[in-house]
């Protein structure tokens, strides 16, 4: 879908991208990274809005540097920042953007209504944008990116500034509409949960460099769940009692990590302590969540 080769972008003395090489696969892909990681810069280079300081980028099989602006007819873009003209209504603005993408007036009007209806915008679509809530503004921004039926939709922080309910709805809408329209999606965000909800693949960037490309499913499979246990002597007898109950365990400093297989794991640990005579000093469930994994990668 997108391929970057040794992509460099500098703004004066600041290096936003430092030789990023990545193949973004087709499907719904999350571009994850902390603020300032270079996500937005990468997107603008992919759109051809910025010229790279070095390297090259190919989008939908075409080199951005040589393809010309027509390539952007195949791409829908929802920027992060607020960029809506308050003087227009939602419908007027999306129709205008559809026409600026090259659609005829009638087709633009019809498609605008279809997209806004799918986004569950009722009569409010006829109100001036200045009267819209944050959630509605995000919907209009999304609509203008989808209206011309692009092959690739690039969403830059689409849930930014939304309350939890609006965020959930936005993520669901993105997933539904892009599934329906068979669009590829590049979702840039610093929120891990958004990627989990929408994407098949995740790309993690940090400090302008690629840190990881992985399927979300296999990433989730790498997550661990255990019970951290501290016991007194006889510790060996306690470990033998765990083995007898077919519980997986490993040493972790002064503690033991016992694999969590459900609530019955706690009963089994208590029984093992009773049987071995080892006093149970601590028993606490711990997980290595996607968040931890992300933080490790970013560090």
């Amino acid at each position, binding site marked *: 879908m997108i391929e970057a080769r040794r992509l460099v972008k500098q*703004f*004066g003395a600041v290096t936003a991208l430092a030789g990023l090489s990545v193949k973004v696969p087709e499907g719904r892909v999350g571009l994850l990274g902390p603020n300032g990681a270079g996500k*937005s810069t990468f997107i*603008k280079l992919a*759109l051809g*809005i*910025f010229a790279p300081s070095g390297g090259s980028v190919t989008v939908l099989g075409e080199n951005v540097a040589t393809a010309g*602006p*027509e*390539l*952007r*007819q195949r*791409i829908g*873009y929802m*920027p992060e*920042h*607020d*960029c*809506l*003209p*308050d003087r227009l209504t939602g419908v007027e603005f999306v129709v*205008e*953007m559809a*026409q*600026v*993408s*090259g*659609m*005829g007036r009638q*087709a633009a009007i019809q*498609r605008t209504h*279809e*997209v806004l*209806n*799918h986004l569950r915008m009722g009569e409010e679509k006829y109100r001036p944008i200045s009267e819209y809530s944050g959630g509605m503004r995000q919907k209009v921004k999304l609509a*203008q990116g989808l209206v*011309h*039926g692009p092959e690739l939709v690039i969403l830059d922080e689409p849930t930014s500034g939304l309350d939890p309910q609006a965020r959930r709805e936005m993520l669901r809408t993105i997933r539904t*509409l892009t599934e*329906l*329209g*068979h669009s590829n999606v590049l979702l840039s965000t610093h929120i891990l949960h958004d990627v989990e909800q929408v994407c098949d693949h995740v790309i993690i960037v940090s400090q302008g460099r690629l840190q990881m490309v992985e399927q979300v499913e296999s990433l989730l499979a790498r997550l661990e769940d255990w019970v951290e246990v501290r016991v007194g002597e006889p510790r060996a007898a306690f470990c033998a009692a765990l083995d007898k109950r077919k519980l997986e365990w490993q040493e972790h400093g002064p503690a033991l990590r016992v694999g969590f297989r459900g609530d019955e794991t706690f009963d089994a640990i208590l029984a093992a302590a009773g049987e071995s005579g080892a006093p149970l000093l601590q028993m606490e469930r711990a997980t290595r969540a996607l968040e931890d994994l992300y933080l490790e990668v970013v560090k």
Partner: protein
Amino acid sequence: MSEARVMERYRRYTAALADRRTIVWGMGWREFERLVRNRWVLLVIGLAWAQTLLIALIVMPQGFFTPQEIHLRLYGDLTGGGIRIQLVLLAAITGSQLVSRDLGDQSIHLYLARPLTRVDYLLARLLTLLLLFLLAALAPNLYLALAQWTDSGYALGWFGDHRWMLLATVGYGLLVSITFSLLALACSALTGRSGYAAVGFFLAVYFPSFLVETGYGLVQDERILLFSVLHLLDMVGHEMFEAPQWVTVYGFFFRIDLGWRTPLLLLAAIWAATASAVTLRLQRLEVTH
């Protein structure tokens, strides 16, 4: 339509998309349509047309002026019966807000993420202003030409006899339109606020005019008039209509002779400078977002 059919339509959608030239033309035309629905714009255009009708109905039949002089006067200062002040007002009201508005609400980023280059975007905005000026400046002059033809007894030979004047009418209309449009767009892009842009445009047009007229009054050197865009337009206009060069200084007419080359070169330099300034401003967007 059932929800299932709506879903199906959404799923199968493939847009038929036009080329860049059509997109640029469409952007320019739609903005023009929006602007001519603005009551203030309509008022200014109405005033220009009302003045044109007065000239056609009252001044022209008296025969004081040659056909060429009538056109020069209509394009010129209010003191000579011209509609220049309306054109300046129109540029200030409309041109000053076009780019600054998109910069102010940041929607320019959405335009530039479409299949448009920065130059395409500028051409679209320029086209809007050109259409507006053609309606406010060129069309009244063409109406005057038509009135001159009907006064001549509908003789078809009149067009042949006055072909240069007709060409000059169209050419000068374009010259004035492009100059004011570019200046207004430059003020709009450089200030980023429509209010500042309007004031900036007035100052860019009238302040140098005031300075050179004062200077001319003091030193009586006609070359000083080359530093004012309004006087440059006057000089080129008189040459185009093959009329002796006259300029107005504080409302009084003065005969000058600076030829057409230098004023035209200076006007071309102003066009190049303003177009470059707007393009550079848009290029700088790269480092702000």
